[in-house]
């Protein structure tokens, strides 16, 4: 019964969190010292065009009325129209978010598959040269700005060695070849059976995913190492060793099993951060993702787009948090 109650409480927090997010973003959007009408009509428009547009957007109404109207639209699934792209914000998000989702997932896979084993290995070899090397690599990876890593990667792997293609999600020759079904280009290419386009898309994503993945790998590895060091000193590890279990069993089954819950939180939050859109990486690699969309919208005072994209980012956080909560209950016997 308590499990159901806890789950209900977690679910009930979702609309409250989202409402708070909408309210705060809406208010920020209205109090910034930028006239949203300028984004639509431009600086040169005569005052009557400005006034008419302000009226059409309902910006002359009191703030609470504007908010209620906006929430009413959202309830009908209408995010409004983006000034920047002329599309409905929903259509834009359906185009930009999958690009970010694809990149973030690829980066997370790299980060987890490299970061976790490295962190565990460094903890097991604590104080030895291997540990020192891994720590230095992780510290560098985490402290070097992402744009430096991205440009270095472009310079070395794209410009010099010519192993990787340049910025963009697809090469010129494949541009527009595959119809968008899911928005996940790799998946769309596979579904369409366009394998050449698939390989091209895979090559295009490799470098930005690697850059983002390495940067996040450093964080995951450091956290894994710290958790493992604590775990390896636990009495249950000494007991396991005394029982004569193999080193691998002690490390992976007992010590690592014990850090899974905390590690999951780190991984989920990393994923949430990646899904928010890595603005600098997306900019350098001309990756048409949510980060670029949100930044462009902010700079253009395109408030519908800003609100819509923020809502999606917020929703992602909420859903991943909920997922993390649920996984606690699966992984941690004390919560069951």
């Amino acid at each position, binding site marked *: 019964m308590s499990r159901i109650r806890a789950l209900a409480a977690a679910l009930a927090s979702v609309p409250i969190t989202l409402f708070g997010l909408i309210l705060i973003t809406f208010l920020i959007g209205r109090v910034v010292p930028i006239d949203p009408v300028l*984004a639509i009509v431009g600086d*040169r428009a*005569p005052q009557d065009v400005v006034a008419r547009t302000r009226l059409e957007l309902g910006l002359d109404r009191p703030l609470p009325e504007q908010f209620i109207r906006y929430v009413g639209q959202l309830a009908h699934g209408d995010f409004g129209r983006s000034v920047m792209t002329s599309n409905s914000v929903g259509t834009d998000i359906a185009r930009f978010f999958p690009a970010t989702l694809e990149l973030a997932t690829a980066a997370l896979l790299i980060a987890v598959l490299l970061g976790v084993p490295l962190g565990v290995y460094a903890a097991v070899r604590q104080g030895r040269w291997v540990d020192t090397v891994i720590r230095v690599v992780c510290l560098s990876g985490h402290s070097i700005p992402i744009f430096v890593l991205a*440009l270095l990667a472009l310079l070395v792997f794209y*410009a010099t060695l010519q192993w990787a293609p340049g*910025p963009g999600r697809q090469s010129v*020759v494949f541009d*527009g070849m595959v119809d968008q079904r899911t928005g996940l280009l790799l998946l769309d290419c596979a579904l369409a059976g366009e394998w050449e386009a698939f390989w091209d898309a895979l090559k295009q994503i490799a470098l930005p995913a690697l850059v983002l993945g390495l940067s996040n790998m450093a964080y995951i590895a450091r956290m894994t190492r710290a958790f493992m060091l604590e775990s390896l000193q636990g009495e249950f590890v000494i007991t396991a060793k005394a029982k004569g279990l193999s080193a691998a069993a002690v490390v992976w089954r007992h010590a690592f099993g014990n850090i899974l819950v905390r590690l999951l939180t780190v991984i989920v939050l990393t994923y949430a951060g990646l899904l928010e859109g890595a603005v600098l990486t997306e900019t350098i690699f001309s990756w048409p993702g949510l980060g670029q969309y949100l930044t462009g919208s902010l700079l253009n005072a395109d408030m519908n787009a800003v609100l819509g994209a923020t809502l999606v980012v917020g929703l992602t956080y909420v859903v991943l948090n909920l997922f993390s909560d649920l996984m606690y209950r699966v992984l941690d016997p004390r919560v069951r």
Partner: protein
Amino acid sequence: MMLNRRTLLAALGASPLIPAARTAWAATPRDVVVMALQMDDIVSLDPQESFEFSGEEVLANVYDRLILPNLKDPTDIKGDLAESWSTSEDGLTTTFKLAQGRKFASGNPVTAEDAAFTLQRAVILNKSPAFIVNQFGFTKENAAERIRATDERTLVLTLAEKGSPSFLLYCLSALVGSVVDKKTVMAKAVGDDLGNAWLKSGNSAGSGPFQLRQWRASESMTLEPNPAHPSPPKLRRLLVQHRPDVSAQLLGLQRGDIDIARTLAPDQLAALSEDAAYTLLTAPKSYVNFLALNQNHPILSKPQVRQAFKWAIDYEGIAASITPKAYEPHQAFLPRGFPGALTDLPFRKDIAKAKALLAEAGLPNGFEITLDHYTVPPFADVAQAIQANLAEAGIKVTLIAGEQRQVITKTRARQHQVAMGLWGSDYMDPNSNSETFNVNVDNTEAQKNRTLAWRSNWKDDEFTARSAEALKEPDAARRVALYERLQRDHQERSPFVFIGQKVEVAAMKKNTTGLELALLGDRTSYAKVSKA
């Protein structure tokens, strides 16, 4: 030195790695040209609505206009879709005769009915650029009567009042005058939108050398030749890509993935200028960078203080050290290249003179003031240089950096003291800038036309009247002379300090040719772009 993307790349570029990159050519097919452009400003691709730099430029290659001024000599106006035109003796009626044989991409012939529909459409939709057409007295109510096609090739425009014939022609040469295919557009119309939703979202219905095949906002645009054009481009496709990061844009050019890079930074261009593998194309643009001194400030409204600003700034130094290959010194409201533009530079840094002017204004110890400026390069650096120059004269400036629209919002509300701005001409006629920098008929909030003069609280009836007089002068040579005199007096008395005129530099691979840059974005031509 602070490490940023550009300095990092510059440092790495000095390594032997870069030459290897230079050898890798021709990554794009020969009949496809890839151009990198910052194009996240596009709001609409409807020529009767588009009013942003990159949108106007692209559309100029998709649509034709009735007439166009010669790029090298703007006083020479040539027919484009129109083969001839004439103005009635009373100056109220202008008749255009359309050339035969021109076709839209759809295959439909270009008729006077299409031209009339286009201008009526601009008036009825009443989007941002509509004022360019509306200033001749056209309204929703009278558009059908005053913009008429009398036969398949004859378009007759009836103006509300007599004015300069060249003014009408220059205005019709603006992008808003781009002729759309009535049949195609109306087939896509929804309600009373005259096809606006269809055109603005990336479709085209023009007779220009290209047609729009695909637009993905803030990502890419694909142009393909219009087979119905008299001289269709040699390319199979022109791909315009949004490449926001200039360092990545440079790498793309060096690697061969980009054929034309349009928004490289000055230091990158300086490096490329010494490399025989690239061609740099340079052209002045119609954008002028200026300071606006708000005249509601008691100190800034003193004539000597306005002059002191003009004599304290190191124009040459700013151009040489901060904005090389980006801005050239320019000190008049008409950009170089416009009919009547003054190109001499009467002001130079003279701190003693600036101090003397301040003393004459009763401010021997200077004063404190705020300066709003954009954060994007090069404005922040230019603002800091001006701050240092003015400090030498005794004017203590506090800089207020803001996002571009934030600064514009503030200046439109007239809440600034001094603000740095950038103004690009809307159309080729001198009135475009003369009006905004001079005319202020009503300095109250009731004013609809919020010119830069209005935004600076500068109401000088003499300048307003002289700008109007020049606008209506029917004789082209006398008109130019009026603007020259107006600029000279404006330099002496206005609260505007002009700092520089924008210069555009495009970097192209050696095997790519044919791009034509122009003073106004809506005249930049891709028609002859080709790759060897």
